[in-house]
């Protein structure tokens, strides 16, 4: 394990800072600036994982986010563990641990490897075909699949890190800081566009930054040298913000992009603490320049997946950027010139290049001559037909290609090597472009999909739009920028290039072997182990649509979204089906481009910030009294106040009795409050409520029921007339925002002629609701000079008064059936008011009660709760509330619907009371109701909506909606439960004080 393939000092790697890390339990060393992949390769470790289906040994293939094989679990079994991390992206730091994912018990001895030998039994669609039948065996299959299909392990411990979100607005966003992106950003910023430049790597410059070959010169300088100067100049440009280690995950419509900025993943543990780990950038850009580059594609040939077989460009990056040789004897296999440059570059560094195998016909060019001069043998018109070496490549076999490229001839030549660089041409990274909704066109000459057209707010530049040669890139970039940025010239208009000319072109999607296809393993999608055979099988089985073939073969369905293999899949389908690729269309790339952590997505919205909550001004008092809370919409409401270890049932029984026997107090601050003013306020209320409002006197209160236009109950509450043209409406706690929205809708769109203004005042007032036979005495103590006599201050009326110096609005209204006073004060005095009431009420055993007791007390009175006893299908008639529906009014919201054929049916579900035959048995809310036993199937007549044990009646009571229930009073019904059947009798829904005597007692 002490092998060292570090070739020479690289300026991008800090060789003075040695870093130790562990991979699969073994300690290795790398340098600051290494990725996990480059550090492993420097230690001559290629084997990093097993493939998903066949468990074949797999090695590092690429140097970037397209990596299909080198997918690891970082820091396993710690609170910072992360699965599915690409070793080619993650930077090493002191103490980092990583392990292979899809292998058990170890990457070197993998039990699932048996699948490799069973592979004839595991064709495309295998999982669909086999594990679906018989259905009852699914549980067994699932166990087997889950055990062997190791896609990493989810973290089980609490994430210790902080995540953040940031909104950014900019004029120009440039994605990708290769040569095109840098020049684009520079020229945008220099022309007064507020510009943001992002790159997923930690260094700017893309692949040009380590480009030193002789055949790509700008202004007679090495392109890397030239670009470094440009990057240096970026520092002095205003209007330009640059973010590295930042990858764009999604590009949505209207130039809305999401990017992940990685801030601490490359730092060692002690430096991660208390820092933001990753930040989600939510970017709105006026213009977007995509300079996302191109991904090199491999080639599809027999056994093209062994550890040691890599992309040619990756070998170059490892040697030129990281200073790492990927092997000691390297062979290139190519269909284009780039492998020649790479061979020369390696040769310069003293790395042995055995041969170049080229599928093209020979061309006498300068490039060829330089390679031959360097002592590298070229095999023209040859293809690799097989490879060998189980855990590491040791040999490739090549043969001569036939003219049409579909078969091989002649003798097999064997070349010993430990690394094969495959150069199959370039695929523009158009993922973000298509995510944005832009369309692609297929370039039959270059065999690539390119962005179809540029538009006013987005362009693609550089190799992501199919320009691969430096002169081509820069010339087109110049023209595009001038047009897109509306400028007359760029700062690189006059540069000069020298480019070698290209040899020739040849592209074969599936390379032939001397063996029949059925006996070969030409992988197309490495991550999902799908081969060319699988594609052909899918076509034979009748699949035609690319989307169907993709799902059947699983090609492109992995975490890499088929970045490497999609083009080959299309090419093979097109060739087999005899159509053009352009006619097939490409598959849709969906966000995210690279996976995001959940932490980044949720940002700060974790723990108590997960959801917004609202607290009343009295909240601290409830907390001090150790109340239990419940969520009502966004509100935290006191639920009940247990004393001395009471259960909820005990507390609620005590609170309910106290409220009826002496006095109770409820924090009602959460009720929605809408201030309504204007000369047409009364008319407005006439139109929105079912009952009449014009004759309500000033200082009086009235209960109102609001319907939807379909006649169904929407909300309810008491509204008070404060003045001639002034009302205060209350709504349900949960419905406040929607009611306001609905009322605004009618005012603005249907009745703009009405002079009415609505203002939400929910948060401006705190409300203490004092109830019970002694409530009047308590209120008298607080406001001695207010006349509380029934004559002066009757039920359903309003007074304004002062508690000491604080103005309060008092409504004598009741949701419990007891005498009640709702005292409203400015919110900031809420707790003070509350404490005064408690103090004054001490001698009357004033008992604070929560929402549960409130619900019980109102159920004793048969008062509905909208949303509990109704569900959007109940009319007022269904609720037996005919009394509140005005017959005289010409119109109100929902009126017409109350006599549609459906709403006048007699057998609609109607609100009734239910009494259990055994008064001790409390029904379950939601329980279904039937009229017959021993019938199967039996009709469900309805269900229980509210159910309590009433301490004041000493029996169980329930509200329910029952089909035709109105006419069933006294009828026996049944509630079948899991273990028993409960017998009930239908009753009037008002259980307590049916004549309302207590309100004025």
């Amino acid at each position, binding site marked *: 394990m002490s092998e060292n393939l570090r070739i020479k000092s690289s300026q991008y790697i800090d060789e003075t800072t040695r870093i130790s890390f562990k991979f699969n339990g073994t300690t290795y060393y790398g340098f600051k600036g290494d990725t996990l992949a480059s550090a492993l390769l420097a230690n001559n470790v290629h084997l990093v994982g097993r493939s998903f289906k066949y468990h074949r040994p797999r090695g590092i293939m690429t140097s970037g986010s397209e990596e299909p094989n080198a997918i690891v679990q970082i820091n396993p079994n710690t609170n910072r563990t992360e699965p599915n991390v690409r070793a080619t992206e993650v930077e090493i730091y002191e103490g980092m641990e990583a392990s292979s994912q899809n292998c058990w018990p170890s990457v070197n001895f993998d039990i699932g490897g048996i699948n490799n030998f069973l592979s004839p039994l595991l064709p495309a669609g295998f999982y669909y075909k086999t594990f679906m039948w018989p259905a009852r065996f699914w549980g067994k299959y699932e166990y087997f699949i889950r055990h062997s299909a190791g896609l990493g392990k989810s973290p089980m411990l609490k994430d210790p890190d902080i995540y953040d979100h940031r909104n950014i607005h900019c004029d120009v966003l440039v994605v990708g800081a290769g040569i095109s992106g840098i020049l684009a950003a520079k020229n945008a910023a220099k022309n007064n566009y507020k510009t943001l430049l992002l790159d997923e790597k930690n260094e700017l410059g893309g692949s040009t930054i380590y480009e030193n070959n002789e055949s790509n010169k700008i202004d007679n300088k090495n392109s890397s040298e030239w670009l470094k100067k440009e990057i240096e100049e970026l520092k002095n440009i205003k209007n330009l913000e640059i973010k590295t280690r930042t990858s764009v995950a999604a590009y*949505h*419509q*209207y130039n*809305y992009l999401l990017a992940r900025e990685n801030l601490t993943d490359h730092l060692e543990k002690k430096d991660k603490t208390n820092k933001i780990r990753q930040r989600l950038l939510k970017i*709105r850009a006026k213009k977007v320049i995509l300079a996302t580059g191109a991904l090199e594609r491999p080639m599809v040939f027999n056994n093209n997946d062994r550890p040691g077989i890599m992309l040619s460009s990756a070998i170059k990056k490892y040697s030129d950027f990281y200073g790492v040789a990927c092997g000691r004897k390297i062979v290139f296999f190519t269909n284009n010139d780039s492998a020649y440059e790479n061979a020369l570059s390696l040769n310069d560094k003293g790395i042995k290049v055995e041969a170049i195998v080229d599928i093209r016909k020979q061309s006498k060019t300068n490039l060829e001559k330089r390679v031959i001069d360097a002592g590298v043998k070229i095999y023209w018109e040859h293809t690799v037909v097989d490879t060998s070496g189980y855990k590491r490549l040791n040999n490739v076999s090549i043969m001569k290609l036939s003219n049409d490229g579909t078969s091989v001839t002649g003798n097999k030549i064997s070349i010993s090597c430990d690394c094969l660089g495959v150069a199959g041409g370039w695929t523009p990274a158009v993922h973000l472009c298509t995510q944005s*909704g832009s369309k692609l066109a297929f370039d039959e000459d270059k065999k690539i999909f390119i962005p179809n057209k540029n538009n006013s707010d987005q362009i693609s530049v550089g190799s992501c739009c199919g320009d691969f040669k430096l002169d081509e890139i820069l010339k087109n970039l110049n023209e595009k920028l001038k047009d897109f940025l509306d400028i007359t010239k760029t700062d690189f208009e006059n540069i000069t290039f020298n480019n070698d000319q290209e040899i020739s072109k040849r592209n074969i999607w599936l390379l032939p072997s001397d063996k029949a296809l059925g006996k070969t393993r030409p992988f197309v999608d490495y991550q999902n182990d799908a081969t060319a055979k699988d594609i052909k099988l899918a076509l034979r089985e009748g699949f035609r649509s690319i989307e169907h073939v993709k799902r059947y073969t699983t090609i492109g369905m992995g975490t890499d979204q088929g970045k490497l293999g999609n083009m080959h899949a299309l090419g093979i389908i097109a060739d087999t089906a005899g159509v053009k690729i352009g006619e097939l269309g490409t598959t849709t790339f969906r966000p995210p481009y690279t996976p995001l952590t959940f932490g980044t997505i949720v940002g700060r919205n974790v723990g108590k910030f997960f959801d917004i909550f609202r607290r009343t001004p009295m909240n601290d008092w409830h907390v001090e009294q150790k109340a239990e809370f419940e969520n009502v919409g966004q509100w935290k409401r006191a639920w009940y106040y247990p004393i001395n270890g009471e259960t909820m049932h005990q507390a609620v029984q005590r609170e309910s009795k106290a409220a009826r026997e002496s006095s109770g107090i409820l924090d009602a601050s959460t009720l929605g409050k809408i201030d309504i003013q204007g000369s047409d306020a009364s008319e407005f209320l006439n139109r929105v409520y079912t009952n009449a409002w014009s004759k309500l006197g000033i200082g009086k209160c009235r209960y109102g029921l609001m319907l939807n*236009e*379909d006649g169904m109950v929407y909300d309810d509450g008491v509204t008070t007339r404060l003045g001639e043209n002034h009302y205060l409406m209350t709504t349900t706690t949960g419905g406040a925002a929607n009611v306001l*929205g609905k009322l*605004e*809708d009618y005012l*603005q*769109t*249907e009745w*703009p002629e009405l002079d009415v203004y609505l203002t939400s005042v929910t948060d401006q007032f705190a409300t203490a609701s004092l109830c019970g036979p002694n409530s009047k005495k308590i209120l008298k103590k607080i406001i001695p000079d207010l006349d509380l006599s029934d004559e002066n201050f009757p039920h359903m009326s309003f007074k304004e008064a002062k508690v000491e110096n604080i103005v309060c609005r008092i409504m004598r209204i009741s949701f419990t059936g007891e005498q009640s006073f709702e005292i409203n004060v400015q919110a900031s005095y809420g707790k003070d008011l509350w404490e005064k009431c408690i103090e004054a009420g001490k001698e009357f055993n004033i008992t604070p009660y929560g929402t549960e007791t409130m619900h019980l007390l109102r159920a004793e009175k048969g008062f509905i709760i909208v949303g509990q006893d109704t569900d959007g299908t109940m009319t007022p008639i269904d609720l037996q509330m005919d009394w509140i529906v005005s017959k005289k009014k*010409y*119109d109100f919201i929902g*009126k*017409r*619907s109350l006599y*549609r*054929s459906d709403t006048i049916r007699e057998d609609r579900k109607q609100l009734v009371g239910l009494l259990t035959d055994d008064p001790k048995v409390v029904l379950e809310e939601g329980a279904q109701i039937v009229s017959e036993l021993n019938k199967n199937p039996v009709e469900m007549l309805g269900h229980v909506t509210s159910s309590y044990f009433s301490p004041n009646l000493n029996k169980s009571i329930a509200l329910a909606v029952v089909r035709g229930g109105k006419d069933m009073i006294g009828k026996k019904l049944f509630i079948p439960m899991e273990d028993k059947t409960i017998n009930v009798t239908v009753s009037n829904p008002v259980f307590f004080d049916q004549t309302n005597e207590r309100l004025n007692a």
Partner: protein
Amino acid sequence: MFVINCPYCGERDQQEFKAGGEAHIERPKQPTELSDDEWAEYLFMRKNIKGVQYERWNHAHGCRKWFNMVRDTSNDEIKAIYKMGEKPPSI
């Protein structure tokens, strides 16, 4: 996520808005004169076009104003925005 140009506030993120369904469906002035079918037509029938659609939107977390929008539902391109009561542009 679109950017919507509220006619009262200017450009804001879609998050601040609520969609309110098809535009230019007027509530009948005399609902009681309508047959069940006519009322149902107003109450339930809404178009769901792939292409240019006239819609109501509300700046719910802003000025609370309702306005109209012409949107191509196939690509979410907003073709026009105009105030309530204004004549719909022909597109």
